Protein backbone atom coordinates (compact mmCIF):
# COMPACT_ATOMS: atom_id res chain seq x y z
CA UNK A 1 0.00 0.00 0.00
CA UNK A 2 1.11 3.50 -0.73
CA UNK A 3 2.26 5.62 2.14
CA UNK A 4 0.20 8.63 1.17
CA UNK A 5 -3.01 6.80 0.60
CA UNK A 6 -6.09 8.54 1.94
CA UNK A 7 -8.25 6.49 4.29
CA UNK A 8 -11.00 9.00 4.88
CA UNK A 9 -12.10 11.71 2.50
CA UNK A 10 -14.68 14.20 3.66
CA UNK A 11 -15.77 16.49 0.86
CA UNK A 12 -17.99 19.54 1.31
CA UNK A 13 -20.06 17.77 3.91
CA UNK A 14 -23.05 19.64 5.30
CA UNK A 15 -25.54 18.31 7.74
CA UNK A 16 -28.95 19.81 8.33
CA UNK A 17 -31.23 19.00 11.21
CA UNK A 18 -34.85 19.92 11.29
CA UNK A 19 -35.53 21.05 14.83
CA UNK A 20 -39.25 21.06 14.08
CA UNK A 21 -39.29 17.28 14.11
CA UNK A 22 -41.18 16.04 17.12
CA UNK A 23 -39.54 12.93 18.34
CA UNK A 24 -42.10 10.28 19.07
CA UNK A 25 -44.79 12.22 17.26
CA UNK A 26 -48.25 11.10 18.26
CA UNK A 27 -51.77 11.77 17.09
CA UNK A 28 -52.62 13.27 20.47
CA UNK A 29 -49.89 15.85 20.02
CA UNK A 30 -51.18 16.58 16.55
CA UNK A 31 -54.71 17.20 17.80
CA UNK A 32 -53.43 19.43 20.58
CA UNK A 33 -51.36 21.41 18.08
CA UNK A 34 -54.21 21.77 15.64
CA UNK A 35 -56.56 22.76 18.47
CA UNK A 36 -54.19 25.49 19.59
CA UNK A 37 -53.67 26.62 16.03
CA UNK A 38 -49.98 25.87 16.36
CA UNK A 39 -48.26 25.33 13.09
CA UNK A 40 -45.29 23.10 12.59
CA UNK A 41 -42.71 25.57 11.53
CA UNK A 42 -39.59 24.31 9.93
CA UNK A 43 -36.69 25.31 12.10
CA UNK A 44 -33.53 24.32 10.38
CA UNK A 45 -30.20 23.97 11.98
CA UNK A 46 -26.98 23.30 10.15
CA UNK A 47 -24.83 21.18 12.44
CA UNK A 48 -22.09 21.01 9.83
CA UNK A 49 -21.47 23.32 6.92
CA UNK A 50 -19.16 22.60 4.06
CA UNK A 51 -16.55 20.53 5.85
CA UNK A 52 -13.63 19.25 3.83
CA UNK A 53 -10.60 17.35 5.01
CA UNK A 54 -8.69 14.18 4.27
CA UNK A 55 -7.03 11.70 6.54
CA UNK A 56 -4.02 9.72 5.44
CA UNK A 57 -3.24 6.16 6.42
CA UNK A 58 -1.80 5.90 9.89
CA UNK A 59 -2.61 9.48 10.74
CA UNK A 60 -4.13 10.37 14.09
CA UNK A 61 -6.39 13.33 13.65
CA UNK A 62 -7.89 15.16 16.60
CA UNK A 63 -11.04 17.25 16.63
CA UNK A 64 -11.45 20.10 19.05
CA UNK A 65 -14.12 22.73 19.51
CA UNK A 66 -16.67 23.92 22.05
CA UNK A 67 -19.71 21.91 23.07
CA UNK A 68 -22.22 21.60 20.27
CA UNK A 69 -19.68 22.55 17.62
CA UNK A 70 -20.58 19.47 15.59
CA UNK A 71 -17.72 17.12 16.45
CA UNK A 72 -19.84 14.13 17.41
CA UNK A 73 -22.15 14.66 14.44
CA UNK A 74 -19.11 14.61 12.21
CA UNK A 75 -17.94 11.31 13.67
CA UNK A 76 -21.40 9.85 13.15
CA UNK A 77 -21.32 10.89 9.53
CA UNK A 78 -17.92 9.28 9.04
CA UNK A 79 -19.09 6.11 10.80
CA UNK A 80 -22.00 5.88 8.37
CA UNK A 81 -24.66 6.21 11.05
CA UNK A 82 -25.93 9.41 9.42
CA UNK A 83 -25.97 10.33 5.78
CA UNK A 84 -24.77 13.87 5.06
CA UNK A 85 -27.37 16.27 3.68
CA UNK A 86 -24.84 17.48 1.15
CA UNK A 87 -21.39 16.36 0.18
CA UNK A 88 -19.72 13.00 0.37
CA UNK A 89 -17.79 10.86 2.81
CA UNK A 90 -15.54 8.15 1.51
CA UNK A 91 -13.87 5.62 3.75
CA UNK A 92 -11.39 3.02 2.61
CA UNK A 93 -11.22 0.16 5.05
CA UNK A 94 -13.09 -1.20 8.03
CA UNK A 95 -14.46 1.51 10.27
CA UNK A 96 -14.79 0.72 13.93
CA UNK A 97 -16.65 3.19 16.09
CA UNK A 98 -15.97 2.87 19.80
CA UNK A 99 -19.62 2.82 20.69
CA UNK A 100 -21.03 3.78 24.01
CA UNK A 101 -20.20 0.87 26.19
CA UNK A 102 -22.70 -1.89 26.46
CA UNK A 103 -25.19 -0.38 24.01
CA UNK A 104 -25.52 -3.75 22.32
CA UNK A 105 -25.87 -5.87 25.43
CA UNK A 106 -28.93 -7.90 26.22
CA UNK A 107 -29.06 -7.94 29.99
CA UNK A 108 -30.90 -11.25 30.13
CA UNK A 109 -28.08 -13.08 28.41
CA UNK A 110 -24.88 -14.32 29.99
CA UNK A 111 -21.52 -12.64 29.56
CA UNK A 112 -20.44 -15.35 27.14
CA UNK A 113 -23.52 -14.87 24.95
CA UNK A 114 -23.15 -11.11 25.09
CA UNK A 115 -19.58 -11.24 23.86
CA UNK A 116 -20.84 -12.87 20.67
CA UNK A 117 -23.91 -10.66 20.34
CA UNK A 118 -22.05 -7.42 20.92
CA UNK A 119 -19.23 -8.56 18.66
CA UNK A 120 -21.70 -9.24 15.87
CA UNK A 121 -23.22 -5.80 16.33
CA UNK A 122 -19.78 -4.25 16.02
CA UNK A 123 -19.43 -6.12 12.75
CA UNK A 124 -16.94 -8.80 13.80
CA UNK A 125 -17.06 -12.26 12.26
CA UNK A 126 -17.66 -15.41 14.27
CA UNK A 127 -14.15 -16.67 13.54
CA UNK A 128 -12.64 -13.48 14.88
CA UNK A 129 -14.59 -13.67 18.13
CA UNK A 130 -13.78 -17.38 18.51
CA UNK A 131 -10.12 -16.59 18.08
CA UNK A 132 -10.09 -13.61 20.41
CA UNK A 133 -12.53 -14.99 22.96
CA UNK A 134 -9.91 -15.88 25.55
CA UNK A 135 -8.21 -12.56 25.12
CA UNK A 136 -11.48 -10.72 25.71
CA UNK A 137 -12.20 -12.76 28.82
CA UNK A 138 -8.69 -12.32 30.18
CA UNK A 139 -8.75 -8.60 29.64
CA UNK A 140 -12.12 -8.17 31.31
CA UNK A 141 -11.02 -10.30 34.30
CA UNK A 142 -14.48 -11.84 34.41
CA UNK A 143 -13.48 -15.49 33.95
CA UNK A 144 -15.66 -16.80 36.80
CA UNK A 145 -18.74 -14.85 35.74
CA UNK A 146 -18.84 -15.98 32.12
CA UNK A 147 -22.10 -17.86 32.48
CA UNK A 148 -23.87 -15.37 34.70
CA UNK A 149 -26.58 -13.18 33.15
CA UNK A 150 -25.30 -9.66 32.69
CA UNK A 151 -28.23 -8.22 34.64
CA UNK A 152 -26.58 -9.56 37.79
CA UNK A 153 -23.36 -7.67 37.04
CA UNK A 154 -22.33 -4.46 38.71
CA UNK A 155 -22.05 -1.45 36.41
CA UNK A 156 -18.28 -1.66 36.67
CA UNK A 157 -18.29 -5.27 35.52
CA UNK A 158 -20.54 -4.44 32.58
CA UNK A 159 -18.27 -1.59 31.56
CA UNK A 160 -15.21 -3.87 31.77
CA UNK A 161 -16.84 -6.51 29.61
CA UNK A 162 -18.05 -3.98 27.05
CA UNK A 163 -14.67 -2.31 26.88
CA UNK A 164 -12.92 -5.64 26.33
CA UNK A 165 -15.23 -6.58 23.46
CA UNK A 166 -15.04 -3.16 21.85
CA UNK A 167 -11.27 -2.91 21.81
CA UNK A 168 -10.37 -6.36 20.62
CA UNK A 169 -10.08 -5.62 16.90
CA UNK A 170 -7.43 -3.77 15.01
CA UNK A 171 -9.62 -1.77 12.66
CA UNK A 172 -8.22 0.17 9.76
CA UNK A 173 -10.11 3.28 10.78
CA UNK A 174 -10.84 3.85 14.42
CA UNK A 175 -13.35 6.43 15.57
CA UNK A 176 -13.01 7.53 19.17
CA UNK A 177 -15.35 9.94 20.89
CA UNK A 178 -13.49 10.65 24.13
CA UNK A 179 -10.98 8.17 25.50
CA UNK A 180 -12.78 5.62 27.56
CA UNK A 181 -11.50 4.60 30.89
CA UNK A 182 -13.76 2.47 33.00
CA UNK A 183 -13.89 0.37 36.13
CA UNK A 184 -11.84 0.72 39.27
CA UNK A 185 -8.50 2.51 39.45
CA UNK A 186 -6.45 -0.44 38.28
CA UNK A 187 -8.74 -1.19 35.37
CA UNK A 188 -8.95 2.49 34.44
CA UNK A 189 -5.22 2.60 33.99
CA UNK A 190 -5.32 -0.63 32.03
CA UNK A 191 -8.13 0.51 29.74
CA UNK A 192 -6.59 3.88 29.10
CA UNK A 193 -3.32 2.21 28.17
CA UNK A 194 -5.17 -0.11 25.83
CA UNK A 195 -6.87 2.83 24.11
CA UNK A 196 -3.61 4.70 23.81
CA UNK A 197 -1.86 1.69 22.35
CA UNK A 198 -4.69 1.21 19.85
CA UNK A 199 -4.43 4.83 18.80
CA UNK A 200 -0.67 4.69 18.67
CA UNK A 201 -0.59 1.35 16.89
CA UNK A 202 -0.45 2.55 13.30
CA UNK A 203 -4.18 2.66 12.63
CA UNK A 204 -5.89 5.68 11.22
CA UNK A 205 -7.71 7.39 14.05
CA UNK A 206 -10.36 10.08 14.22
CA UNK A 207 -10.35 11.28 17.76
CA UNK A 208 -12.59 13.70 19.63
CA UNK A 209 -11.54 14.84 23.06
CA UNK A 210 -12.05 17.73 25.41
CA UNK A 211 -8.66 17.04 26.90
CA UNK A 212 -6.29 19.27 24.95
CA UNK A 213 -3.42 17.46 26.64
CA UNK A 214 -4.45 14.13 25.12
CA UNK A 215 -4.88 15.72 21.71
CA UNK A 216 -1.48 17.31 21.93
CA UNK A 217 0.09 14.04 23.01
CA UNK A 218 -1.58 11.77 20.46
CA UNK A 219 -2.44 13.63 17.29
CA UNK A 220 -0.46 14.41 14.16
CA UNK A 221 -3.09 16.75 12.86
CA UNK A 222 -5.73 18.87 14.54
CA UNK A 223 -9.03 20.09 13.16
CA UNK A 224 -10.72 22.86 15.08
CA UNK A 225 -14.46 22.99 14.50
CA UNK A 226 -16.68 25.84 15.60
CA UNK A 227 -20.42 26.19 14.80
CA UNK A 228 -20.15 23.45 12.22
CA UNK A 229 -17.38 25.19 10.32
CA UNK A 230 -13.76 24.26 10.13
CA UNK A 231 -12.04 27.06 12.03
CA UNK A 232 -8.49 25.87 11.46
CA UNK A 233 -6.71 22.77 10.25
CA UNK A 234 -3.09 22.17 10.99
CA UNK A 235 -0.57 20.74 13.42
CA UNK A 236 -0.46 20.89 17.18
CA UNK A 237 -0.07 24.65 17.19
CA UNK A 238 -3.84 24.78 16.67
CA UNK A 239 -4.22 23.67 20.27
CA UNK A 240 -2.62 26.85 21.56
CA UNK A 241 -4.80 29.01 19.36
CA UNK A 242 -7.83 27.14 20.61
CA UNK A 243 -6.87 27.61 24.25
CA UNK A 244 -6.33 31.30 23.62
CA UNK A 245 -9.73 31.50 21.96
CA UNK A 246 -11.42 29.75 24.87
CA UNK A 247 -9.68 31.97 27.40
CA UNK A 248 -10.79 34.98 25.42
CA UNK A 249 -14.35 33.78 25.56
CA UNK A 250 -14.19 33.42 29.32
CA UNK A 251 -12.61 36.79 29.87
Amino acid at each position, binding site marked *: MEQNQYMVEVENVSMR*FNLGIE*KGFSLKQWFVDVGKGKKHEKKEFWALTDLTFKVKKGEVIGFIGSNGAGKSTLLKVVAGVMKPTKGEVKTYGTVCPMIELG*AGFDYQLTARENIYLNGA*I*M*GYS*KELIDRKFQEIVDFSELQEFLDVPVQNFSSGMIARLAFSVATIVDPEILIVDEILSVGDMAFQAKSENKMLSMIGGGTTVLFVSHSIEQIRKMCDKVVWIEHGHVQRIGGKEICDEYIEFMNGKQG
Partner: protein
Amino acid sequence: MLNNLKYVFKKYNFLLRQLVSRDFKVKYKRSVLGVLWSLLYPVLTMAVMAIVFTNVFKFSTPGVNYLVYLMSGLIIFNYFSEASNLAMSSVVANFSLINKVYMPKYIFPLSKCIFVGINFLLTLIPLYAIILLTGTGLNVYHLLLPYGYLCLFMFTLGFGLILSTVAVFLRDMFYIYGVVLTLWTYMTPIMYDIAIIDHPLLQSLLKCNPLYWFVYFSRRIILYGVVPELNAWIYCMVFGLGFLLLGVLIFKKNQDKFIYYV
Protein backbone atom coordinates in the same frame (compact mmCIF):
# COMPACT_ATOMS: atom_id res chain seq x y z
CA MET B 1 -24.32 -5.11 -7.58
CA LEU B 2 -24.70 -8.84 -7.07
CA ASN B 3 -21.24 -9.10 -5.57
CA ASN B 4 -22.05 -6.25 -3.26
CA LEU B 5 -25.21 -8.01 -2.15
CA LYS B 6 -23.25 -11.17 -1.49
CA TYR B 7 -20.72 -9.26 0.59
CA VAL B 8 -23.41 -7.59 2.69
CA PHE B 9 -25.18 -10.89 3.18
CA LYS B 10 -22.01 -12.61 4.28
CA LYS B 11 -20.99 -9.81 6.57
CA TYR B 12 -24.32 -9.51 8.33
CA ASN B 13 -25.30 -13.17 8.28
CA PHE B 14 -23.58 -13.67 11.61
CA LEU B 15 -25.35 -10.70 13.17
CA LEU B 16 -28.67 -12.02 11.90
CA ARG B 17 -28.00 -15.41 13.48
CA GLN B 18 -27.00 -13.79 16.73
CA LEU B 19 -30.16 -11.68 16.84
CA VAL B 20 -32.38 -14.68 16.16
CA SER B 21 -30.64 -16.87 18.71
CA ARG B 22 -30.78 -14.04 21.24
CA ASP B 23 -34.57 -13.97 20.91
CA PHE B 24 -34.70 -17.70 21.45
CA LYS B 25 -32.53 -17.66 24.53
CA VAL B 26 -34.44 -14.79 26.07
CA LYS B 27 -37.80 -16.34 25.30
CA TYR B 28 -37.16 -19.77 26.72
CA LYS B 29 -34.59 -19.15 29.41
CA ARG B 30 -36.90 -18.48 32.31
CA SER B 31 -39.80 -20.77 31.61
CA VAL B 32 -39.76 -24.26 33.08
CA LEU B 33 -41.43 -25.81 30.07
CA GLY B 34 -39.21 -23.93 27.62
CA VAL B 35 -39.72 -24.83 23.99
CA LEU B 36 -42.64 -27.01 24.99
CA TRP B 37 -44.68 -23.82 25.33
CA SER B 38 -44.38 -23.27 21.61
CA LEU B 39 -46.03 -26.62 21.05
CA LEU B 40 -48.54 -26.33 23.84
CA TYR B 41 -49.72 -22.78 23.24
CA PRO B 42 -51.43 -23.28 19.87
CA VAL B 43 -53.00 -26.51 21.09
CA LEU B 44 -54.47 -24.79 24.14
CA THR B 45 -55.73 -21.84 22.07
CA MET B 46 -57.26 -24.28 19.65
CA ALA B 47 -58.94 -26.17 22.48
CA VAL B 48 -60.47 -23.00 23.88
CA MET B 49 -61.72 -21.89 20.48
CA ALA B 50 -63.06 -25.32 19.68
CA ILE B 51 -65.05 -25.42 22.91
CA VAL B 52 -66.44 -21.92 22.43
CA PHE B 53 -67.33 -22.17 18.78
CA THR B 54 -68.72 -25.68 18.64
CA ASN B 55 -70.71 -25.48 21.87
CA VAL B 56 -71.74 -21.85 22.10
CA PHE B 57 -71.97 -20.77 18.48
CA LYS B 58 -72.61 -24.22 17.02
CA PHE B 59 -70.12 -23.74 14.21
CA SER B 60 -69.34 -26.77 12.14
CA THR B 61 -67.44 -27.61 9.01
CA PRO B 62 -69.28 -30.44 7.30
CA GLY B 63 -67.12 -33.18 5.89
CA VAL B 64 -63.90 -32.15 7.61
CA ASN B 65 -62.65 -32.25 11.16
CA TYR B 66 -63.23 -28.95 12.95
CA LEU B 67 -60.10 -29.27 15.11
CA VAL B 68 -57.87 -29.63 12.08
CA TYR B 69 -59.80 -26.84 10.40
CA LEU B 70 -59.12 -24.52 13.33
CA MET B 71 -55.53 -25.51 13.84
CA SER B 72 -54.48 -25.17 10.20
CA GLY B 73 -55.79 -21.59 10.14
CA LEU B 74 -54.71 -20.68 13.61
CA ILE B 75 -51.00 -21.36 13.17
CA ILE B 76 -50.94 -19.18 10.06
CA PHE B 77 -52.69 -16.28 11.72
CA ASN B 78 -50.61 -16.61 14.88
CA TYR B 79 -47.44 -16.47 12.84
CA PHE B 80 -48.57 -13.36 11.03
CA SER B 81 -49.79 -11.49 14.07
CA GLU B 82 -46.78 -12.24 16.25
CA ALA B 83 -44.15 -11.67 13.59
CA SER B 84 -45.67 -8.45 12.27
CA ASN B 85 -46.11 -7.12 15.78
CA LEU B 86 -42.51 -7.82 16.77
CA ALA B 87 -41.21 -6.51 13.46
CA MET B 88 -43.13 -3.28 13.97
CA SER B 89 -41.44 -2.48 17.26
CA SER B 90 -38.03 -3.88 16.29
CA VAL B 91 -36.60 -0.73 14.73
CA VAL B 92 -37.81 1.59 17.48
CA ALA B 93 -36.56 -0.82 20.13
CA ASN B 94 -33.06 -0.77 18.66
CA PHE B 95 -32.74 2.98 18.29
CA SER B 96 -29.87 3.08 20.77
CA LEU B 97 -27.85 0.86 18.43
CA ILE B 98 -28.88 2.49 15.16
CA ASN B 99 -27.74 5.77 16.63
CA LYS B 100 -24.24 4.54 17.33
CA VAL B 101 -23.04 1.99 14.86
CA TYR B 102 -23.85 1.37 11.24
CA MET B 103 -25.76 -1.74 10.35
CA PRO B 104 -28.44 -2.43 7.79
CA LYS B 105 -31.65 -1.54 9.59
CA TYR B 106 -33.82 -4.10 7.83
CA ILE B 107 -31.94 -6.71 9.84
CA PHE B 108 -34.22 -6.06 12.85
CA PRO B 109 -37.61 -6.76 11.22
CA LEU B 110 -36.02 -9.61 9.27
CA SER B 111 -34.62 -11.27 12.38
CA LYS B 112 -38.03 -11.08 14.07
CA CYS B 113 -39.79 -12.68 11.10
CA ILE B 114 -37.23 -15.48 11.06
CA PHE B 115 -37.39 -16.00 14.81
CA VAL B 116 -41.18 -16.32 14.79
CA GLY B 117 -40.82 -18.41 11.64
CA ILE B 118 -38.78 -21.02 13.49
CA ASN B 119 -41.45 -21.02 16.19
CA PHE B 120 -44.00 -21.51 13.43
CA LEU B 121 -42.15 -24.61 12.24
CA LEU B 122 -42.38 -25.97 15.78
CA THR B 123 -46.14 -25.46 15.76
CA LEU B 124 -46.33 -27.80 12.78
CA ILE B 125 -45.64 -30.62 15.25
CA PRO B 126 -48.95 -30.21 17.13
CA LEU B 127 -50.70 -29.60 13.80
CA TYR B 128 -49.53 -32.92 12.43
CA ALA B 129 -50.26 -34.64 15.73
CA ILE B 130 -53.87 -33.49 15.44
CA ILE B 131 -54.05 -34.41 11.77
CA LEU B 132 -53.02 -37.96 12.67
CA LEU B 133 -55.02 -38.24 15.90
CA THR B 134 -58.27 -37.11 14.27
CA GLY B 135 -57.81 -39.56 11.45
CA THR B 136 -57.66 -36.82 8.81
CA GLY B 137 -54.60 -38.49 7.44
CA LEU B 138 -51.75 -37.44 5.22
CA ASN B 139 -51.47 -37.18 1.47
CA VAL B 140 -48.70 -36.56 -1.00
CA TYR B 141 -49.83 -32.98 -1.63
CA HIS B 142 -48.49 -31.98 1.77
CA LEU B 143 -45.23 -31.50 -0.10
CA LEU B 144 -46.79 -28.42 -1.69
CA LEU B 145 -47.38 -26.71 1.67
CA PRO B 146 -43.97 -24.99 1.83
CA TYR B 147 -45.03 -22.86 -1.15
CA GLY B 148 -47.92 -21.38 0.81
CA TYR B 149 -45.82 -20.92 3.92
CA LEU B 150 -43.05 -19.23 1.96
CA CYS B 151 -45.56 -16.78 0.49
CA LEU B 152 -46.87 -16.17 4.01
CA PHE B 153 -43.33 -15.39 5.17
CA MET B 154 -42.75 -12.94 2.32
CA PHE B 155 -46.07 -11.23 2.98
CA THR B 156 -45.39 -10.95 6.70
CA LEU B 157 -41.88 -9.61 6.18
CA GLY B 158 -43.08 -7.01 3.68
CA PHE B 159 -45.90 -5.99 5.97
CA GLY B 160 -43.53 -5.87 8.95
CA LEU B 161 -41.13 -3.60 7.04
CA ILE B 162 -43.97 -1.19 6.31
CA LEU B 163 -45.20 -1.27 9.92
CA SER B 164 -41.75 -0.70 11.37
CA THR B 165 -41.26 2.32 9.10
CA VAL B 166 -44.60 3.85 10.07
CA ALA B 167 -43.96 3.16 13.77
CA VAL B 168 -40.79 5.27 13.68
CA PHE B 169 -42.75 8.32 12.60
CA LEU B 170 -46.00 7.61 14.40
CA ARG B 171 -45.82 5.96 17.81
CA ASP B 172 -49.62 5.60 17.97
CA MET B 173 -49.14 2.76 15.54
CA PHE B 174 -48.52 0.36 18.42
CA TYR B 175 -52.06 0.93 19.71
CA ILE B 176 -53.70 1.27 16.33
CA TYR B 177 -52.24 -1.97 15.08
CA GLY B 178 -53.45 -3.82 18.16
CA VAL B 179 -57.01 -2.90 17.23
CA VAL B 180 -56.41 -3.68 13.57
CA LEU B 181 -55.13 -7.13 14.49
CA THR B 182 -58.24 -7.86 16.54
CA LEU B 183 -60.42 -6.92 13.60
CA TRP B 184 -58.20 -8.92 11.30
CA THR B 185 -58.64 -12.03 13.46
CA TYR B 186 -62.37 -11.98 12.81
CA MET B 187 -61.99 -11.04 9.15
CA THR B 188 -59.91 -14.15 8.55
CA PRO B 189 -61.88 -17.37 8.35
CA ILE B 190 -60.03 -19.19 11.10
CA MET B 191 -62.93 -20.45 13.18
CA TYR B 192 -65.68 -20.13 10.59
CA ASP B 193 -66.09 -21.15 6.98
CA ILE B 194 -66.39 -18.29 4.53
CA ALA B 195 -69.35 -20.11 2.99
CA ILE B 196 -71.57 -19.30 5.98
CA ILE B 197 -71.58 -15.66 4.92
CA ASP B 198 -74.44 -15.42 2.47
CA HIS B 199 -73.88 -11.81 1.49
CA PRO B 200 -71.92 -12.11 -1.80
CA LEU B 201 -70.32 -8.66 -1.56
CA LEU B 202 -69.06 -9.27 1.96
CA GLN B 203 -67.77 -12.65 0.91
CA SER B 204 -65.72 -11.25 -1.94
CA LEU B 205 -64.51 -8.51 0.39
CA LEU B 206 -63.18 -11.13 2.77
CA LYS B 207 -61.32 -12.70 -0.11
CA CYS B 208 -59.31 -9.50 -0.53
CA ASN B 209 -57.61 -10.44 2.73
CA PRO B 210 -54.19 -11.90 1.84
CA LEU B 211 -54.28 -14.17 4.87
CA TYR B 212 -57.43 -15.79 3.52
CA TRP B 213 -55.45 -17.15 0.60
CA PHE B 214 -52.60 -18.57 2.67
CA VAL B 215 -55.13 -20.28 4.92
CA TYR B 216 -57.18 -21.44 1.94
CA PHE B 217 -54.11 -22.82 0.18
CA SER B 218 -53.06 -24.95 3.12
CA ARG B 219 -56.60 -26.14 3.92
CA ARG B 220 -57.20 -27.38 0.41
CA ILE B 221 -54.24 -29.69 0.92
CA ILE B 222 -54.56 -30.64 4.56
CA LEU B 223 -58.34 -31.04 4.79
CA TYR B 224 -59.44 -31.89 1.28
CA GLY B 225 -56.35 -33.65 -0.04
CA VAL B 226 -56.41 -31.84 -3.36
CA VAL B 227 -54.02 -29.59 -5.24
CA PRO B 228 -55.10 -25.97 -4.65
CA GLU B 229 -56.69 -24.25 -7.64
CA LEU B 230 -54.53 -22.12 -9.89
CA ASN B 231 -55.98 -18.86 -8.59
CA ALA B 232 -54.91 -19.78 -5.04
CA TRP B 233 -51.34 -20.28 -6.25
CA ILE B 234 -51.41 -16.94 -8.01
CA TYR B 235 -52.98 -14.95 -5.18
CA CYS B 236 -50.48 -16.34 -2.67
CA MET B 237 -47.54 -15.30 -4.81
CA VAL B 238 -49.00 -11.93 -5.77
CA PHE B 239 -49.68 -10.99 -2.15
CA GLY B 240 -46.41 -12.47 -0.89
CA LEU B 241 -44.05 -11.03 -3.46
CA GLY B 242 -46.08 -7.85 -3.91
CA PHE B 243 -46.02 -6.91 -0.24
CA LEU B 244 -42.38 -7.88 0.10
CA LEU B 245 -41.41 -5.57 -2.75
CA LEU B 246 -43.63 -2.80 -1.43
CA GLY B 247 -42.18 -3.19 2.06
CA VAL B 248 -38.59 -3.15 0.83
CA LEU B 249 -39.32 -0.07 -1.27
CA ILE B 250 -40.97 1.88 1.55
CA PHE B 251 -38.35 0.86 4.09
CA LYS B 252 -35.46 1.70 1.79
CA LYS B 253 -36.88 5.07 0.90
CA ASN B 254 -37.26 6.09 4.54
CA GLN B 255 -34.48 4.36 6.43
CA ASP B 256 -32.02 7.25 6.25
CA LYS B 257 -34.57 9.48 7.98
CA PHE B 258 -34.96 7.15 10.97
CA ILE B 259 -31.95 8.60 12.70
CA TYR B 260 -33.60 12.01 13.09
CA TYR B 261 -36.48 10.48 15.00
CA VAL B 262 -34.29 8.69 17.49
